[in-house]
């Protein structure tokens, strides 16, 4: 860089700041362009892994926007609605829908992904995506085998009028589970367990009727 002959201090300041800003902008854009595809690929793998975990038997996924006025492919990005992941097996048969949900837990928001199987009207699996529950107590919601067994076939049947669930998904005290729509809470981590049940209930009340209404269309999106 050459020193311009006579320059006022103000000009020098602006020139230096401008040059530094341009340099940094260039560097950031270069790195962004270079890492963008890698990051997108990492995110795709992470989502896929989670989706196939909550929908047993699935090997393919299609992102769908599901709203009150029907379904659209997420790539078309039209219409209002929530993005869900339709999961299919090798033969192209709809195995389930993976949805994201969240609710306030003990420390902060618990975010999770769960798989809903429209054929049996039940939840097939959950995976906790983000939480800051107490280690040793609340964080058991992510891996406690007894708790996760709740979600192998958690009933979520749409009611007759088609605007919600017949029986809301509820957490009950540890060892008091009687019905297929109840979640057996972990003893010592009731609030965290309730958070999971709340998240599922709130999401399902809204989405289950939509999924059932557009079930045939969802089965077709793979083609």
């Amino acid at each position, binding site marked *: 860089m050459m020193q311009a002959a006579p320059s006022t201090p103000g000009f020098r300041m602006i020139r230096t700041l401008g040059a530094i800003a341009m340099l940094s*902008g260039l560097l950031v854009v270069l790195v962004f362009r270079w890492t963008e595809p890698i990051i997108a690929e990492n995110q795709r793998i992470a989502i896929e892994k989670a989706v196939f975990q909550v929908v047993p038997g699935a090997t393919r996924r299609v992102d769908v926007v599901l709203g009150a006025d029907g379904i659209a492919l997420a790539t078309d990005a039209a219409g209002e609605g929530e993005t869900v992941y339709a999961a299919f097996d090798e033969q192209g048969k709809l195995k389930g829908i993976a949805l994201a949900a*969240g609710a306030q837990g*003990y420390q902060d928001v618990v975010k999770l992904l769960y798989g809903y199987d429209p054929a049996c009207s039940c939840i097939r699996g959950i995976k906790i995506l983000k939480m800051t529950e107490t280690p040793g107590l609340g964080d058991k919601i992510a891996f406690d085998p007894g708790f996760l067994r709740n979600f192998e076939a958690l009933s979520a049947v749409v009611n007759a009028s088609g605007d919600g669930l017949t029986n809301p998904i509820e957490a009950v005290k540890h060892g008091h589970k009687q019905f297929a729509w109840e979640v057996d809470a972990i003893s010592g981590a009731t609030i965290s367990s309730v958070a999971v049940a709340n998240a599922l209930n709130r999401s399902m009340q809204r989405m289950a009727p939509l999924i059932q209404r557009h079930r045939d269309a969802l089965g077709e999106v793979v083609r």
Partner: protein
Amino acid sequence: MQGESLGFIFLNAAVVNNFVLALFLGICPFLGVSAKKETAWNMGLATLFVMLVSSVSAYGINWLLTELDLMFLRLICYIAVIASAVQLVEMFIKKFSPSLFRSLGIFLPLITTNCAILGLALFQTAKEYDFLQSVVYALGAGVGFTLALLLMSGLREKLELAEVPAVSQGAAMSLMLAGLLSLAFMGFAGLGGSHG
């Protein structure tokens, strides 16, 4: 998350996830200016004020950068705008309220490098709060910061009168105290559990 009530956001930022004692943001001023209640109070107020200003500006920048599709410049813009916002606020106060400037003045430049301010901007972006939620979140964070600072300074003033081994004086003792305070604040967790 959408749909969090404003009261809950405030409570969450002020005590459940207190910026200093649970998220470890703004530790430097927390240890540095908590020796006296008077200074702690002023520092707390100055921080609260700057938090509100930077929360609003961060909301604006985020909106602008999203419109322009320039998300990768977010961090650089945040820090630059927060730093200049603090400068502007300082000049403004100096001109219109010299008495306020005398009590807050020396703390304002210190706050620019306070990670609680930048943290606030980043968290409100990550949580996708709308405008009103962001402001309430900033208010809660500032109140929580002031609360932590006041509690700490109260403890430290009492400790001046106690005889402690020479080796444990200073930063080590302050950190142990902060640990105890943090332990106490963990009791606030679960406040939001009944919600929703």
